């Protein structure tokens, strides 16, 4: 089986890429291991930031719906419940589909399998009730199940603070947000929503232990200095859930087995596939986008997907050079504007470094 463009992962990057590629006339196959495409978008009940012209102010869940609707209108071929289990030479992707392993040969392959939450090791972290903040968000916003009544959040980045807010909206008591750094990591406006609701931040603290026999019953936190717990500063309280939100890292197993050159980029989550200004990796014809290509946000993921798809369509001869260059520049400009300011500038510098070095 052959397709011009095979996109692995139907999150914001993959959906945006599928729409871009299909509307340029490419023969596209989008595969996703879940029963619905959309990735993390359907968990995002909050209104997105970004530019008004590109869906800012719209809730993530609604952006997901819009993207799905567009893929339907364009008749994009989508395989759901279909994990890609491996990539072989000549851009052949092995995909489990309807109980059969289909090997699809792609002229252009886009890997956008997202990111994974970082784990944190502490005594009791394997007890039921300790979970990634993303897992709690899936439970509450997709499964409509409140994971617990008294919740401690570990990590004050945007994920930790947004998930804490949504757990509170669903009726849970968030006992606090602990943060190892001396300052809050999230956008201030997200932090301010939490503070107005009376939730305290414990800055310079970390989780020391989850206590309980069959499940989490208590959380012990302690001051954290120079990477070490300060003995004697331990505080504890009753909880039934501890959420861990200590960052994400690119999920790039498929890119790795395809032989894509990786590099260590701490600003973007650690080891990640390197790419050029078209999101193309060191293996010609294999592109990466979204969190797989460095952990950022859904808005940047969508634009990276579009950029990769526009470049692929151009390389396939479906998109005239002049128009394609114009389109790609427009997307790059938008990405640049999303990476402005104190929260984005490190990511922007890292991306510039990656593209500047070449693959």
């Amino acid at each position: 089986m052959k397709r011009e463009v095979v996109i692995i992962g139907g999150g914001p990057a993959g959906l945006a890429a599928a729409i871009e590629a299909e509307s340029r006339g490419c023969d596209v196959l989008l595969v996703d291991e879940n029963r619905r495409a959309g990735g993390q978008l359907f968990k995002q009940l909050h209104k997105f930031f970004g530019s008004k012209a590109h869906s800012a102010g719209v809730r993530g869940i609604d952006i997901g719906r819009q993207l799905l609707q567009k893929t339907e209108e364009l008749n994009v071929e989508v395989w759901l419940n279909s994990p890609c289990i491996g990539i072989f030479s000549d851009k052949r992707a092995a995909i489990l589909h309807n109980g059969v392993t289909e090997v699809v040969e792609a002229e252009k392959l886009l890997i956008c399998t997202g990111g994974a939450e970082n784990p944190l090791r502490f005594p009791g972290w394997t007890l039921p009730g300790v979970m990634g903040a993303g897992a709690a968000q899936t439970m509450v916003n997709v499964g409509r199940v409140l994971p617990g009544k008294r919740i401690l959040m570990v990590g004050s980045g945007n994920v930790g603070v947004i998930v804490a807010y949504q757990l509170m909206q669903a009726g849970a008591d968030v006992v606090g947000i602990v943060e190892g750094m001396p300052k809050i990591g999230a956008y201030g406006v997200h932090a301010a929503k939490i503070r107005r609701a009376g939730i305290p931040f414990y800055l310079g603290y970390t989780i020391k232990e989850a206590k309980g026999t069959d499940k989490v019953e208590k959380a012990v936190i302690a001051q954290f200095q120079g990477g070490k717990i300060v003995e004697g500063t331990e505080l504890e309280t009753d909880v039934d859930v501890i959420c861990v939100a200590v960052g994400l890292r690119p999920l790039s197993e498929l890119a790795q087995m395809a032989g894509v050159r990786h590099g260590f980029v701490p600003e973007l989550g650690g080891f990640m596939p390197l790419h050029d200004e078209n999101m193309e990796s060191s293996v010609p014809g294999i592109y990466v986008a979204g969190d797989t290509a460095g952990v950022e946000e859904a808005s940047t993921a969508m634009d990276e997907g579009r950029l990769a798809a526009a470049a692929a369509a151009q390389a396939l001869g479906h998109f005239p050079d002049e128009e394609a260059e114009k389109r790609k520049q427009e997307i790059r400009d938008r990405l640049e504007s999303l990476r402005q300011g104190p929260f984005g500038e490190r990511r922007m510098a890292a991306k510039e470094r990656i593209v500047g070095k070449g693959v």
Partner: protein
Amino acid sequence: MGTEKGIIYDGYPSAEEIRQANGWPEEERWEKGPVAVVECVQQIPCNPCEGACPFHAIQIGNPITNTPRVDTEKCVGCGMCVAACPGLAIFVVDKSLGNGLAAVSFPFEYVPLPQKGDQVDALSRAGEFVCKAEVIKVMNPERNDHTPVITLAVPKEYADQVRTMRRLRLPEKGEGFHKAEKDEILDDDVIVCRCEEITAGEIRKAIREYKATTVTEVKRRVRAGMGLCQGRTCGKIVARMIAEETGKPMSEILGSTDRPPVRPVSFGELAADKEESDDERDNV
């Protein structure tokens, strides 16, 4: 919680930060009627407020990380920007109400919503009780997209403090944090690889005694990362432990080699591939 003030320490902006970000209207503007107070003090990539104002009173421009600038002469305090702000950082304050009262409007995304006429607890930016207040307006039209805007009448002297109200349905509050009892737990006993039940002690031993310096070497010696999840969960912890033990930076600690299948797959599903030639199947 610290001694330093400001949004990155307190979680809410100080008056100084709001003033510096041009969010605070001039003194003489207050008496003229309702006006938007924009408490957006950091440069973040966001500009829906600019397009939401029907009077073009909010300006961000380029780059979109500029903090919003309100032209208080153009602003009529209509509140269209309040629900449009994804950060819920815009308020409308009306100090011209008379009778020593001021109106404070704020976004409020919790159920149940209050009713007009309810007496509620008005809270500060830190979520602390400021005063009792009457709900004088509840706005929740479709265009707000589930961000209702509540208006409270508060004594004028509290107009700059009140920024929300206490939720009407509060979760049961347990006891807060208190000093923990002394408890000796050994890190060596903590499980790192959940699939194969490999402890931190076993991994440390692989690093110290068997000289494993990569995640793959640890995997080969003690099976951490060989289970169902293929090290997706523990891989980073193992890498961090190698860094701790060897003093090497994380950038030098290679992850495990990824091989197909990256998801659990039955032999049946693999063998059911009938469309491909035999040599291709051999690669699988």
